């Protein structure tokens, strides 16, 4: 089985800034692959390199086994769903969807039939004659999706397509995208800065930081076994402990522990990691309460407690001394050399 997309030592520089720094990665055919990272981490540039809007300064981009380096976007069998949807405002919805087929010279009757089919795929079959301006954000998003899918691309690129939608719609679209991807068997490459989105939809996730991939793994492994300090704090905001305290507790240079694995108690427990400290902050978050404890000067550890009806134990108040504890198995040691390189 060939790879859908390969990056071979790919670099892209803008002046002094290296947006993509010697990235090598393979994306398998039929995979739902996410590129996750903060803004400016190089994930969108990687997507644009695949689409052909950017050309690498060094290295190669291979699409379906063929070197695509130097090919313009209109000679690549990939399609993009843009962040702002980029629907043509002067065309009706059906003409927008049929655009790719029209410029490729597909006969009018066939392209309209296929566009209508694509409209039905995104559950908007009665909206063909409208103009994009007459649609809601969620509907425009689906039209952008239909316009890309009607060309039957080998790879579909999605550039933060859910960013402009409200939370409820976003969750609904996440499910729908996943369903579409399974149904069509197309490789989806999804760029996002939202870790929940990446974890819930993807087969594999590449976490980007400063133009490089920090870790490439399944969502479960990313969350449970973060390799670096950056991944640990970016995905699920784990507590990162390093230096003397890390040596004392785990015998490593740095380790991560998830806030939800930490319990807050009024007294010390046995057979676990136990620390005491002063509560500095309490945040009520609905399902959970986040409690921040200063266990050593300048070392803050956050614990997440589920709010349940049955255990309405009184919450500690800021300034109070409390005990926190966790199982030794909850600690994940981090690659300290790369931690240092990341400089975070």
């Amino acid at each position, binding site marked *: 089985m060939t790879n859908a997309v390969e990056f071979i030592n790919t670099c892209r520089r803008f002046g002094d800034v290296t947006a993509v720094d010697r990235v090598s990665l393979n994306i398998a055919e039929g995979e739902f692959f996410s590129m996750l990272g903060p803004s400016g981490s190089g994930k969108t540039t990687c997507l644009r390199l695949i*689409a*052909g*809007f950017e050309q690498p300064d060094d290295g190669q981009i291979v699409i379906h086994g063929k070197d695509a380096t130097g090919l*313009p*976007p*209109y000679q690549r069998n*990939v*399609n*993009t769903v*843009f*962040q*702002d949807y*980029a*629907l*043509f*405002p*002067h065309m009706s919805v059906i003409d927008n969807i049929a*655009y*790719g087929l*029209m*410029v*490729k010279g597909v006969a009018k009757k066939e392209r309209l039939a296929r566009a209508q089919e694509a409209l039905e795929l995104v559950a908007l079959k009665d909206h063909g004659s409208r103009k994009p301006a007459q649609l809601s954000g969620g509907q425009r998003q689906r039209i952008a999706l239909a*316009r*890309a899918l009607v*060309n039957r691309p080998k790879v579909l690129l999605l550039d933060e397509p859910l960013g402009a939608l409200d939370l409820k719609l976003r969750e609904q679209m996440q499910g729908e995208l996943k369903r579409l991807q399974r149904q069509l068997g197309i490789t989806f490459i999804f760029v996002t800065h939202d870790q929940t989105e990446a974890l819930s939809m993807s087969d594999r996730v590449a976490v980007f930081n400063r133009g490089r991939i920090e870790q490439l793994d399944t969502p479960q492994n990313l969350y449970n076994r973060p390799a670096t300090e950056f991944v640990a704090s970016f995905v699920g905001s784990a507590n990162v402990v390093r230096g003397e305290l890390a040596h004392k507790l785990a015998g490593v240079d740095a380790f991560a522990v998830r806030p939800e694995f930490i319990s807050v108690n009024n007294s010390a427990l046995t057979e676990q990691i136990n620390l005491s400290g002063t509560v500095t902050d309490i945040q009520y978050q609905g399902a959970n309460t986040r409690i921040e404890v200063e266990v050593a000067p300048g070392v803050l550890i956050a614990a997440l407690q589920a709010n349940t009806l049955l255990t309405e134990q009184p919450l500690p108040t800021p300034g109070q001394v409390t005990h926190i504890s966790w199982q030794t198995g909850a600690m994940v040691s981090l690659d300290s050399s790369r931690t240092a390189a990341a400089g975070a």
Partner: protein
Amino acid sequence: MSSAVSSNPAAFNSHPEQPRNLLQRCSDALYLQPQLLLLLLLTPPLLWFGSVYIASLLALLWQGLYTFDDFTMLVSHTLTLSNYAQLFEAANFDIILRTLLMALSVSLFSAMLAFPVAYYMARYASGKTKAFFYLAVMLPMWTSYIVKAYAWTLLLAQEGVSNWFIDLLHLTPVLNWLLSLPGIGGNTLSTSNLGRFLVFTYIWLPFMILPIQASLERLPPSLLQASSDLGATPAKTFRHVILPLSVPGIAAGSIFTFSLTLGDYIVPQLVGPPGLFLGSMVYVQQGSIGNMPMAAAFTLVPIVLISVYLAIVKRMGAFDAL
């Protein structure tokens, strides 16, 4: 709320109890009554516009109904439609047609010249280059229009720079061939319709570049990327995306070039073959002959032509770009 205010009098209470002076009370009233403010702002310009523009224009058109006596050269207040009917006489209709054709061809050619410049300004130039282009486009508008028109009579003259330059490029035969064409040509460049057309295009070009530039500036780059992503070559992207979306700008620019050419009476006097333009006909009728009713009747022509033109370009969405 009130308890908070009273509990901290120094910080909260001092401000509202200070007496408001007249000016402050006036601005309070205007803030609370936005319609009053709007009325105050709009009344003077509307009065000015109504009396100076609309009323005088209607008065002028009304004069077109008066009778001019050819023997006594006097205007009598007897109402007649004959002035307006005379517009359709062959000699007068020729003038209308000549002006209309010139206005249309100047608009078309200006759009073709302006588009690449506007495209470069909108999509490629930035910072100082962009400022330079703005300046270069607008600079000619800072000089007097009459000076420019006169300058062109010298440039286009038989011994002028343009003939010397054309000769330098060994293109004199091409020029002679162009000048021999009926309708376009003439004895020399400065007495040909071609010369007049060039001067018109030169003078009105900035009015075409700026609206097109504005419409291209509003085109999101992602639309062009989407087009190429969907398989369109640059030529197809131009035809199906860039051009249709810049039509409002082209139409807005052509409103300027069209109506300005239609009403002009200086350039036709200085450059080009004999034969009156609409503007020069009005000038001749009221200035030399004193036939005010006929001059008034002629002013109706550009008004009608421009109204028709505006109705057409409005349908193309031109006013979205103004």
